[in-house]
């Protein structure tokens, strides 16, 4: 683990007292490797290391800690600060229905997360409506309908011959007529570099003005996550993220990368395939997971 590696590093260096620049440089080499192994983006690691270096040089090692533990403490605090506090709240509109739209790359877990989110919001007293906005993927509509049936939550669909913009617009009317105060829109997976499909999301946004746009990201995503997050945020604008498949054993460095490049909060964590497997995202837990 990183803690063990740092203990080794400091064994060869000076003992207690203040952390010298040399001590810190040695330690930062280990921290850098640990973060890269954890899939934190290369450039994000560079910035992060220089911030930690600034904070760590000249620091008095606390009585109860070894120099290695002192460095880990600083790294952990810096990581946790960067990832922000727990922000698992959806911004509900004062004039329902609140419109939540889930977007992201292919296979990230959007459709499943739509089901989970509907389940969660209903437990919080909301009356959600699921909207089948993916007209492309084979059996995508059916997939959402099956989830809706399992949850006994209504699914709005107009089949796959109408444009997603029209479908989402019609769903708002439907929600108003049937008393649904929250609309959760499932969209097709798409590449951030696909002009046409990114344009489709922008059209939906312009037409219905969603209150929350959540970018769904697979926790095992590697270096490329910064390109994806940056692109979705600059072209569309996102309000928050959901990190899925955190029940896997990936270190999840993507979490740090997306927060660093978008500044947006990770609101939820997908922790399994079942529809109750959605939790608030806890930054300090993620920080220690990333460090390994």
């Amino acid at each position, binding site marked *: 683990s990183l803690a063990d590696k740092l203990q080794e590093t400091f064994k060869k260096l000076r003992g207690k007292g203040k952390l010298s620049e040399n001590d810190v440089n040695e330690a930062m080499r280990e921290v850098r*490797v640990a973060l*890269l*192994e*954890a*899939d934190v*983006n*290369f450039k994000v690691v560079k910035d992060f290391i220089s911030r930690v270096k600034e904070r760590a040089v000249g620091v008095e090692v606390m009585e109860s800690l070894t120099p290695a533990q002192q460095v880990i403490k600083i790294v952990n605090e810096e990581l946790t600060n960067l990832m922000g506090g727990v922000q698992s709240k959806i911004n509900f509109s004062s004039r329902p229905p609140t419109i939540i739209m889930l977007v992201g*790359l*292919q*296979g*990230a*877990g959007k459709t499943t997360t739509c089901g989970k989110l509907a389940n969660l919001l209903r437990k919080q007293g909301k009356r959600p409506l699921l909207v089948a906005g993916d007209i*492309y*993927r*084979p*059996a*995508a509509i*059916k*997939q959402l*309908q*099956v*989830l809706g049936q*399992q949850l006994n939550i209504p699914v709005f669909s107009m089949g796959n011959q109408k444009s997603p913009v029209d479908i989402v617009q019609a769903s708002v009317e439907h929600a108003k007529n049937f008393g649904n105060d929250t609309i959760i829109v499932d969209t097709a997976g798409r*590449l*951030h*570099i696909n002009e046409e499909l990114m344009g489709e999301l922008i059209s939906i946004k312009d037409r219905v003005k969603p209150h929350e746009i959540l970018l769904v990201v*697979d926790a*095992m*995503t*590697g*270096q*490329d*996550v910064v*390109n*994806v997050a940056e692109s979705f945020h600059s072209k569309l604008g996102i309000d928050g993220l959901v990190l899925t*498949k955190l*029940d*896997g*054993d*990936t*270190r999840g*460095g*993507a979490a740090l990368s997306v927060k660093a490049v978008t500044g947006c909060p990770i609101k939820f964590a997908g922790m399994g*395939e079942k529809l109750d497997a959605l939790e608030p995202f806890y930054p300090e837990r993620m920080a220690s997971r990333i460090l390994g």
Partner: protein
Amino acid sequence: VTGYKKLEPEFYDDLEAVLIQADVGVHTAMDLVEKIRCKAEKDKLETPDKVKELLKEEIAKILGEDTVPLNIPSESPAVYLVVGVNGVGKTTTIGKLAYKLKLEGKKILLVAGDTFRAAAIDQLEIWANRVGVEMLKHQEGSDPAAVAYDGIQAAKARCTDVVIIDTAGRLHNKSNLMEEIKKVRRVIERELPGAPHEVLLVLDATTGQNAIAQANLFKEATGVTSIAITKLDGTAKGGVIIGICSQLDIPVKFIGIGEKIDDLKEFEPHDFVEALFA
């Protein structure tokens, strides 16, 4: 790594950076660059371009110099089992592969072995219809090993050339799910000696270092004879396969470059390496 007129330490740092950002992994990247740096010194290479070419050749060597074809047994049917974690593109890849093999004149049977996920069977059925091949399915929630068993029996009876078995996505750290896929493999082996002739692990090009754990655990559980890496039409480079090939010696046979029926190409090591540095 452009703009360097002569070899300097920063050039090697930049090479390492390019590899790391391509998901090659920090240790594999450092090892590769160090190996190249030593070789460049020994062979007295003078220019950054020559060193870059050396690196490309080194990577291509690891990936295998040539395209490796699918295993075809002397007696039909060939049985291909497709495995991998959730959402990587297994079902879509099966559709594309069926199309490719059908164009080669093969008689194909798809087996809907994902009996768990919502509308998984429907999804594969749409692909089967698009390609124009048969599909065998059971009820949702049935035992995937039973579906695989039925699939093999049907293939033998119908003189099928290729059976491709879809399975549910599963995270490799879920022991009960890994036990399930082991059972599917055992059933296939028992019903047809020599089968499965391919265990194709599907990896997503956007995945980082966790892909190595995926390859390791699936290799342990079911054996893996080949890899397909999908979503290379995005901006991710899929560099993690370099570490996988060098550590586990599993050939990459296909790449997915889109969501359409013909978006499956045979893996070509030199093209892949060029794209790594593009």
